[in-house]
């Protein structure tokens, strides 16, 4: 990318006075100086590794021998022979559809609830917000305990109520629902942005709707939702982008539930149970750092990059919040 520093082009034909030119040069130098930490960072931690990833994706490289060009071999390996790719992609789709939408709906519900609470609002808000702060590893460990089929309190309560007690993190058809519950526990961020959006809805619109005899459902449909829909959109898009990075909770839950936690000892292959928790980022780890197939790891990395940037471009296109300038 080429960024031209300094102010706008001098109007054609007119001679630019020397004093003005040197002022412009100073302004350009100043801008460059202020941006310099990030320009170095952008070049070195974004552009360089991205180009390098692209290069590795068409080479065979194990970290020891010199990389050799192999064309699309890694790509065909990932799509045809890497046993987890399609399952991981299906899992990701499941998480996007179920986890993201439940998080948004639940976050909006909790946000609406907190705006209606009159007694102890501060206390409730703190309660609802706290789990969001729990470090992901700690939160996952906590849920691995709460949902463990042997001594976990959740299954005991379900048993007392006469309900079936699933195996959660140890059962392939319940592991993703268990991760979804964990994600819904940490809803604090969405609650806060929805709360702010709901309080910004003009009160007059509610009053007008009420005069027209609108019930609660109609008020939500015709007043609340149209006002907060940009924020809902924002929550969905960032939710999808976050899902592309979904890593820690899935791998830690798998490790703890499978019992294979050796630190530097025994190697844990992600996806436990039966591949039900594989996600794309875990494949970069598996291929690169467990199988030392850097080339194929870079193929997954590029797929991740493409999906993430496609959704990021939705955020960029929306002029309202993200790209707004002061003038």
């Amino acid at each position, binding site marked *: 990318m080429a960024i031209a520093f300094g102010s706008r082009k001098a109007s054609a034909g007119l001679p630019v006075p020397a004093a003005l030119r040197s002022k412009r040069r100073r*302004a350009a130098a100043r801008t460059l100086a202020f941006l310099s930490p990030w320009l170095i960072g952008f070049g070195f931690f974004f552009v360089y590794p991205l180009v390098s990833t692209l290069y590795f994706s068409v080479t065979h490289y194990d970290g020891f021998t010199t990389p050799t060009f192999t064309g699309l071999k890694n790509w065909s390996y990932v799509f045809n022979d890497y046993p987890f790719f399609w399952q991981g992609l299906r899992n990701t789709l499941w998480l996007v559809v179920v986890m993201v939408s439940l998080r948004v709906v639940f976050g909006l519900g909790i946000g609406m609830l907190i705006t*209606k609470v009159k007694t102890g609002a501060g206390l409730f808000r703190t309660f609802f917000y706290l*789990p969001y702060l729990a470090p992901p590893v*700690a939160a996952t*460990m906590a849920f691995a305990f*709460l949902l463990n089929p042997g001594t976990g309190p959740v299954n005991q309560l379900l048993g007392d109520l006469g309900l079936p007690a699933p195996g959660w993190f140890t059962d392939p058809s319940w592991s993703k629902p268990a991760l979804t519950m964990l994600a819904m526990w940490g809803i604090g961020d969405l609650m806060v942005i929805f709360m702010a959006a709901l309080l910004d809805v003009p009160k007059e619109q509610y009053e007008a709707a009420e005069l027209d005899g609108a019930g609660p459902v109609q008020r939500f449909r015709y007043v609340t939702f149209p006002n907060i829909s940009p924020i809902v959109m924002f929550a969905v898009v960032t939710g999808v982008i976050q899902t592309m990075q979904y890593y820690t909770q899935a791998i830690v839950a798998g490790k703890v539930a499978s019992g294979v936690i050796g630190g530097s000892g025994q190697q844990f292959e992600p996806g436990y149970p039966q591949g039900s928790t594989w996600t794309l980022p875990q494949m970069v780890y598996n291929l690169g750092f467990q199988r030392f197939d*850097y080339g194929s790891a870079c193929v997954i990395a590029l797929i991740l990059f493409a999906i993430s*940037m496609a959704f990021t471009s939705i955020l960029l296109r929306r002029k309202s919040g993200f790209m707004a300038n002061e003038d």
Partner: protein
Amino acid sequence: MTLSTTLTKPAAAPGSSKSASEAARTARRRAALHWVAVHSTAIAAALFFVLPFVFVFLTSVMTDQQALTKNLWPTTWEWGNYVKVWQTPGFLTWWRNTLLYAGLGTLLTVVSSLPVAYALAKFRFRGRNLALMAVIAMMMLPPQVTVIPMYLFWAKQMHLSGTLWPLIIPMAFGDAFSIFLLRQFLLTIPKEYIEAAKIDGCGDLRTLLRVVLPMARPAIAAVALFQFFYAWNDYFGPQIYASENPGAWTLSYGLESFKGAHHTNWNLTMAATLLVMAPVIILFFFAQKAFIEGVTLTGVKG
């Protein structure tokens, strides 16, 4: 700050008919019912959010024998579990490493990101929108996309694998999320302040340090908190760069090895889990306002 959704018209003037007072009574009853419905829902929701902490805590103070049973309430309170966790080999080192990563990383992030955010918010230059887009793209980039070349660089060329430096050093070159959050805040500072400082003869750096910095304190606090939490919570980074050397592990990375490697029972694991959560939650209570402000700033609030 509460939305009033119930119709609570003031009671009719004295001396009016019986039906008017009846209507007022119905309205009051409806308001009371609404209050009960809202608050019982809130209590039910609060249970969902709080009970996990409660069960984790109760298990953390059980004896080894109790933790194997289905008892939910500890029969004897084994506070010594927390001492045992502290004495676990490595636990103190993990604390030290986490504080180094989070503390130094946060400091470097703030120092390097503020001037960039200032330039993006207040300077006019060609390519500014493009630069902002690049910041946002970087912010949304999954860390796994660039990890292979970065790992090869740090491990094979710099010989820094087995340490946390590959995670700390990049923070001296601006963090995209911090730049974005600071920029969003700096946009709200009226340019008159900056122009006034210029007229008083302040250079750009002086203006930033003397005028902008004091005004941006809440945003800087939010950025510092987010970055501290990010480093505290980071699992992927330490897994890639530090896993080979337990002496460089952080709490978030070391915690998962607790069950199995050090202790077989849930009680000590849950005590360790709470000890990893505690600093973050305590920090939150001290800086609640800055934190919430930060969350709202990054949401779409122009």
